[in-house]
């Protein structure tokens, strides 16, 4: 229980941010929440602009709104025309709608273009204590900064465009505490897969998860973004990490940051954003990082994940009848036999990229594995930068060269690519991929595609081995 702003009992970080943004509290239990930043991409938005036009409404705050092109965009070459007429039309509408309503848009080819959840932090727009929404479920990524960031549907996009607010019911709070230290070779991706395997795809439902504990503090901002990114895969509305020195260091290197006394003022505001010691969470779990090892998904939802060292489970391993039938169905789709060691699973393709693992740190981790090695014959390794800035940085640091020498297909343009399978990058039916994205749903990477979610290091090692592998196996 807490009693709003600094009342009698402690508040969680999420409650504090929430309370600082309540414009109006309705009798029905909804809070009208002010939105500090509204991000848009081309796929889920044309209908929202149509709605505005039909009602004769304007965009209340174009200066708090930003569009990018990422889902449909080609990655092979920036000048490539989008072949699918429907997708091309969506991108044209994004451009004309943003122009009509005065919204800045980072088009393909702009050095600030990229996957929507990658560019917000990169451009210094994502800051602690903010409320951030976007027409995309992985908006949760930006909770890594101690911001309240979540995905919304198209009708809500229209609502935010028109009012800069959203009427919402406040979710409950959940604490996910990770003690200890991640062993060498185990990343934030492995950690979040382990968390989801433990709590399930609905374990965080109706809750905002706060990640805390020694292992979370030790993560880089990139790692925290990976963690918060997949929060939605646990059914949670949003994930947050309290801002600390790592956050401040990252922010201090962003463009457009205040300086001098104004910076100090911001820092004071940001560092006050933490859960009070007596804050009450509605539920929580505690995990030990020390015992973790690389994780990989075996089924068709992210909760169906196990250590790479393990074997494909059998439906009989599950006592819950629903889980048992889900497992049987998943195994049939994914084409794996119970008892098979995960390391014996061969792949046709490897995808490194997406808003989960398409940042520079992820590309560095992949390059560290690929340096001096070759991608196995018959395996297509595609690496897609999360943003144009990530691509430029990878060239500067010589990663592009490492990728080229290894025989990887390092794409020229940034975007969702094989995570969304909306552009030309997709798997053929029956093809199997190790992928650094966040979803292994049926058909996610193309009709009939089979996906194993992995970390960038495991993805790179898998591309070399031709079957699921950790760097230590090479």
């Amino acid at each position, binding site marked *: 229980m807490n009693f709003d702003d600094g009342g009698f009992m402690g508040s969680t970080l999420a409650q504090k941010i929430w309370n600082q943004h309540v*414009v*109006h509290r*309705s009798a*029905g*239990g909804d809070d*009208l929440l*002010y939105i*500090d*930043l509204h991000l848009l991409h081309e*796929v*889920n938005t*044309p*209908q929202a602009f*149509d709605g505005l036009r039909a*009602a004769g409404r304007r965009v*209340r705050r*174009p*200066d*708090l709104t*930003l569009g990018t092109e990422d889902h449909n965009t080609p990655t092979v070459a920036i000048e490539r025309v989008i072949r699918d007429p*429907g*997708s091309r*039309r*969506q991108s044209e509408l994004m451009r004309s709608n943003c122009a009509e309503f005065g919204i*800045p848009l980072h088009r393909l080819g702009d050095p600030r273009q990229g996957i929507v959840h990658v560019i917000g932090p990169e451009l*210094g727009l994502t800051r602690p204590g*903010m409320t951030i929404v976007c*027409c995309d*479920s992985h908006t949760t990524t930006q909770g890594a900064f101690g911001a309240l960031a979540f*995905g*919304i*549907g198209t*009708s*809500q996009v229209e*609502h935010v465009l*028109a*009012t*800069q*607010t959203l*009427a919402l019911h406040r979710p409950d709070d959940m604490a996910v505490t990770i003690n200890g230290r991640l062993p060498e070779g185990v990343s934030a991706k492995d950690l979040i897969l382990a968390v989801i395997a433990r709590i399930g*795809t*609905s374990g965080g*439902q*109706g809750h905002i998860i706060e990640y805390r504990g020694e292992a979370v503090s030790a993560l880089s901002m990139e790692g925290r973004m990976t963690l918060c990114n997949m929060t939605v895969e646990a*059914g949670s509305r949003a994930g947050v990490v309290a801002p600390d020195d790592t956050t401040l260091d990252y922010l201090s290197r962003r463009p*457009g940051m*205040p300086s001098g006394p104004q910076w100090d*003022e911001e820092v004071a505001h940001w560092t006050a954003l933490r859960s009070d010691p007596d804050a009450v969470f509605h539920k929580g779990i505690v995990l030990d990082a020390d015992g973790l090892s690389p994780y990989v998904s075996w089924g068709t*939802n992210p909760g169906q994940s196990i250590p790479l060292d393990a074997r494909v489970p059998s439906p009989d391993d599950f006592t819950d009848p*629903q889980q048992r039938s*889900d497992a049987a*169905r998943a195994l049939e789709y994914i084409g794996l036999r119970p008892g098979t060691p995960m390391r014996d699973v061969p792949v046709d393709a490897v995808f490194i990229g997406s808003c989960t693992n398409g940042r520079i740190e992820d590309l560095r981790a992949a390059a560290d594995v690929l340096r001096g090695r070759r991608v196995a014959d018959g395996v297509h390794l595609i690496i897609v930068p999360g943003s144009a800035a990530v691509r430029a940085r990878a060239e500067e640091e010589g990663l592009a060269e490492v990728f080229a020498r290894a025989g990887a297909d390092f794409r020229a343009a940034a975007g969702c690519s094989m995570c*969304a*399978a*909306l552009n030309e990058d997709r798997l053929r039916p029956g093809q199997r991929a190790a992928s650094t994205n966040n*979803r292994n749903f*049926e*058909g*996610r990477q193309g*009709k009939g595609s089979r996906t194993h979610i992995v970390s960038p290091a495991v993805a790179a090692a898998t591309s070399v081995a031709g079957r699921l592998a950790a760097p230590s196996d090479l």
Partner: protein
Amino acid sequence: MYQFTVHTGSAVPLRRSNVDTDQIIPVRFLNRSQRTGHADSLFADWRDDPAFVLNQPQYQGATILVAGTEFGTGSSREYAVWALLDYGFRAVIAPRYGDIFRENALQNGLLPVELPTGAVEQLWDRVEARPDIPVTVDLQRLSVRCAGHSHPFALEEHARQRLLAGEDRIAQTLRHAERIAAFERGRRAALPVTT
């Protein structure tokens, strides 16, 4: 804008849980820019299978989908809701939903009814035994009725009122324009802008 009061129709039993929005409408159909015209995209990959429940003649014309738990998890695509509505569904009944899907459904007047697993299983059995059995979803009385059995359900009161009245949410919020403006005046100057 979208109203829901009481609806009676026949139902389809979808005995699956964790039906994510990628299944409800595969991504390749997201290249459309309208709210309507998505009926054929609904469960498109599963409909390739002649045995899939939506392909069975006895369930044609059904308006209520009865599904397993965690319906509509995953991607935020409102297309999933539009496809269900275009196909003819007015309500979904399941033990639990993905948060964003549920919100999208409420926004569009597709009623996401939450019933316990036991009640969902009973409905599956009844509908399979008699596919044309009428099922009533009553938002006024917050109950689902079928073959003389009544299952109560809950919905946040504000969402219920809004659906019963069919109110335009944006218009509702714009009534607070003064409060929004006042809030804006109090925002810290250092907050970032995109322009």
